[in-house]
Structures are given as C-alpha cells and as structure tokens.
C-alpha cells in the first residue's frame, strides 16, 4: 500500500517529503470515506457530461478524451470514463501521460522511473482533453502535463479534473472539475487511496512528519 513518488513529489513545494507510511496514513484525518470517493467521482462524471455536452449527438461538439496523469490520475480517468458511459451512454477515449520527462526539477530530485504513457485511439488532435489527476497542489505537474500534451497534438481545448484541490498554487492554474476543496497547511500532506492500488478508497489529511 505504498504511496508512489509522484504523491511525494507534490507535497512540499521545493523539497521532497518522505513517503507515506501506511500506519501514519491510517492515523490521519479522514476527508473522504470509501463511499464518499465513489459519490465524488460520480458527481464529477455528471459535471463533465454537462459541461462538455458529449452526449448531445451534435457533430460540432468536440470529441472528449480523458488523459490521466499516472498513477492515480490514470486510475481516476478510467473510473470517470466508466461512470460517464453509465450516465450518458457515450464512452470517452482514455489516455495516460507520464509527465516525468517534462518535469523542471529532474536535476534536483532523486531518480524516478517512467510511468506508462499511452495516446488514445484517434489521438488528441482537435479533441477536448480533460486532464485527470488526484491532487492539485503547486500546479507544476499540470504545467508539465500541458507541455507534454503539446507534443502529442493540438487539442481544441484542455480542461482539468482533480479529486482534491489543496491550494498553494505556484502557477496560474485552476481546475475545471474539483471533487473536494481542502484548505491545507504546507506542512500537511494529502493521501489519496484507490482500490486498484491500495485495496480501498479514501482520502486522508495528516501532519507531515508529526513532531519532527
């Protein structure tokens, strides 16, 4: 149930936080329970359908492509796509974009292995791309993802969907779909658990490093 490095990379603006230890995650304050996570994803799916009109059948409406940022963003993108299909009958294409190669802090951080990148069938040319990630923090990951998207093609528009927005932006970036806004202190840490990786769903807030 280890939390991957991209979580750690997002916490702490410049510095690398230590990786979560499951016991400590357990001890953190629960922000979303297992059933809350499911409900939140369903609500976001409805919002995406409403805002993109992907089920309107209108040929002038842009094709919707969900691009997840590994690892949990990709998982969320798959879940969102499932719900969107359930509610609207239209299944959006799904892709995955690893932003490791686009980070601007590669020289100052420990080595991180690449995650999977996959371009959806039909590419992203002229599509409405919805980037999906679990936590929005400094905005640097999203900036990297925007750079990465530019190399994949030219979407008609790009929107951003995140499960948690915890604030502390360092770049002028905001999300179009937010599961939950959580005001945090910089010393705090957010852990998103997803069934596919961690055996259960849940979002926890904890004090970074406790008394240290």
């Amino acid at each position: 149930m280890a939390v991957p490095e991209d979580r750690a990379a997002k916490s702490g603006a410049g510095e690398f936080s230590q990786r979560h230890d499951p016991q400590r995650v357990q001890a953190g304050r629960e922000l979303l329970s297992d059933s809350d996570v499911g409900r939140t994803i369903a609500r976001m799916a409805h919002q995406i359908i409403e805002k993109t009109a992907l089920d309107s059948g209108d040929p002038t409406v842009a094709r919707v492509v969900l691009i997840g940022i590994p690892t949990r963003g990709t998982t969320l993108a798959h879940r969102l796509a499932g719900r969107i299909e359930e509610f609207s009958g239209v299944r959006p294409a799904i892709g995955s974009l690893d932003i490791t190669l686009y980070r601007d802090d590669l020289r100052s951080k420990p080595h991180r292995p690449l995650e999977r990148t996959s371009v959806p069938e039909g590419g992203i040319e002229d599509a409405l791309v919805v980037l999906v990630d679990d936590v929005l923090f400094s905005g640097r990951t999203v900036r990297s993802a925007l750079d990465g998207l530019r190399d994949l093609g030219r979407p008609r528009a790009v929107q951003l969907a995140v499960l948690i927005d915890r604030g502390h932006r360092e770049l002028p970036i905001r999300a179009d779909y937010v599961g939950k806004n959580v005001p945090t202190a910089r010393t705090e840490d957010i852990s998103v658990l997803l069934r596919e990786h961690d055996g259960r769903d849940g979002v926890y807030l904890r004090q970074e490093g406790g008394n240290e």
Partner: protein
Amino acid sequence: MKHLLSVTDLDRDAATGLLDEAQRFEQALLGREVKKLPTLRGRTVMTVFFENSTRTRVSFEVAGKWMSADVINVSASSSSVSKGESLRDTALTLHAAGADALIVRHPASGAAHQIARWFAEMDEAASGYAGPGPAIINAGDGMHEHPTQALLDALTLRQRLGDLDGKRVVLVGDILHSRVARSNAFLLSTLGAEVVLVAPRTLLPVGVEAWPVRISDSLDAELPGADAVMMLRVQAERMNGGFFPSAREYSIRYGLNERRLKMLDERAVVLHPGPMLRGMEIGYTVADSPQAAVLQQVNNGVHMRMAVLFRLLVGTDEVVA
C-alpha cells in the same frame, strides 16, 4: 549510478530496470507527432569516437537529441588527437569544456575505465575544476566491452522471446575480438539465459573457461535447441595472423546460411550487432529473413541509450526510500 563502463557493474535488478525503462521510452514516444522531450535540456552530451561507427554513434546522438540535450560529436580524425594529443588531455579538455556525459569509443581495452579513473583522481585532488567529472559511457573499448549493445540485444531478445530466464542463446564466430560477445555473455547470463559459444578454438579468448558459458565446436549441433543465435562479425581489422584457414572455410563452418536457418526453431531469433558481412558470417537472404532482428536491434538501440542517459544524467544520487 555514475558511469556505465561494464555490464558486470549491473546486477539483475539494475539490468532489468534499464530494460524496463527503455521499453517505457519506446512507449512514451509511440504515436507522437513530435519526438522531442525536454528532459535533458541544458545538458551537454559529447560522443568521443576514436574508431568508426554508424549505429552506436548515431543512436546515442539521436537519443540525446530526442531528450533535448546538446550533442557534440568528437571524432579522432577531426580533433587534436590527430596532432598527437593524449587521451587524458582530450578527456580533460572535454570535461573543462562542460561535458555532462562522455560517450567513449576507443580501440584500446579499458580506455573508458581509465578516463573515469582520471576524473576521479582530479575530483579528489580538487584541482580547480568545478564539480565531479562527467558521466562516462563505454561505447566499446577494444576487445573488452560494449555494454549498451548488450543491453539493446537483451531488450530485443526479451521483446521476441519474453522473459530470458532459461532461454538458450548461441553466440557464433569471432568471440576473441568481440566486445559485443563478451558483454552479451555476461549480461545474458546475469538475466538468467543460458549462453553457448560456438567458435574456432583460435577465436576464443584466454580465460573463457571462467565465463558463465558453455563452449561448443559444432554450430549444426547447437542450432536445433537454440532460442536465439547471435552472429558476430569477423573482425579482420583486429587480426594480425592466421586465425582460420580461409574465409570460405570459416563461412562453411560458422556462417549462418539458408540451410542452417531451417534447422532453427521458427520462433528463434537471429541477431547481428552489425556491420554485417553478408555472404561471410551471415547469408544474404538470412539477414533479411523475418527471423532476423537486425533493424529491430538498431531501433531498440535508440530507446536503450535514452534509458541509459536518463539514468546517468537525471536525478540526484540519493535513492528514494
């Protein structure tokens, strides 16, 4: 990992990690309009080639350029080496000029190791150069090693055969002069494959008994059970005596012709590190058969070298706990 000098520096996990990463680079580039990543922007990669090469130099250059590094090619004939500058001075000059990585090909075995040692001494003496020396990648040193070639061969085999554990790979020909054979023998056995060498006794190196391989005299006997055959070029430029009676006899005994290709399992892979001498160690049609993976090897070479540059040039040395 600071340098890549020898495959013996890689344990099974490290080697598998590099292969996985190369695979992910291939995936990351798949379907892209623009094959250019900003990963190594502002880093300087220099290839220093004291011997001719097409594949290795070009694939390192492409790998560096696809990751936005500034790639500078230095060759012996166009540098002050032709005026008599020593290897040490050339290396120190490139260090001082700001290289972040030196990719070294040299006709003398151990050249890359020697450069790494000089840089380490300089670093220890703290003689005014800023920071530690560049990362050194051995791109072939004499008859010794060619680690990135062995890695890309392993990647090609893994793509064609799946996990290498227990697979039988037959290396055929001029083992003595072949750094590719040496690196492959060690890396493939690290990865769990069974390696068989088939060569004239005169073309086996001293000490081959200590290698993790089996030695055989008969190519015909080894072909039916092989999962892969790696043909090696007969390196006439390194031969200063009669290692075998005639090219024709060598070709008859150790060449992979159409008759021998039929003895192979149809899923078995034929590798050749290039350049191929068609008609000598490999038949004309064999080299173009679907079992031959020669161009796939070249293609993998780029991704493999991206993975190596990424591993050596990106990230601090500290390991994520």
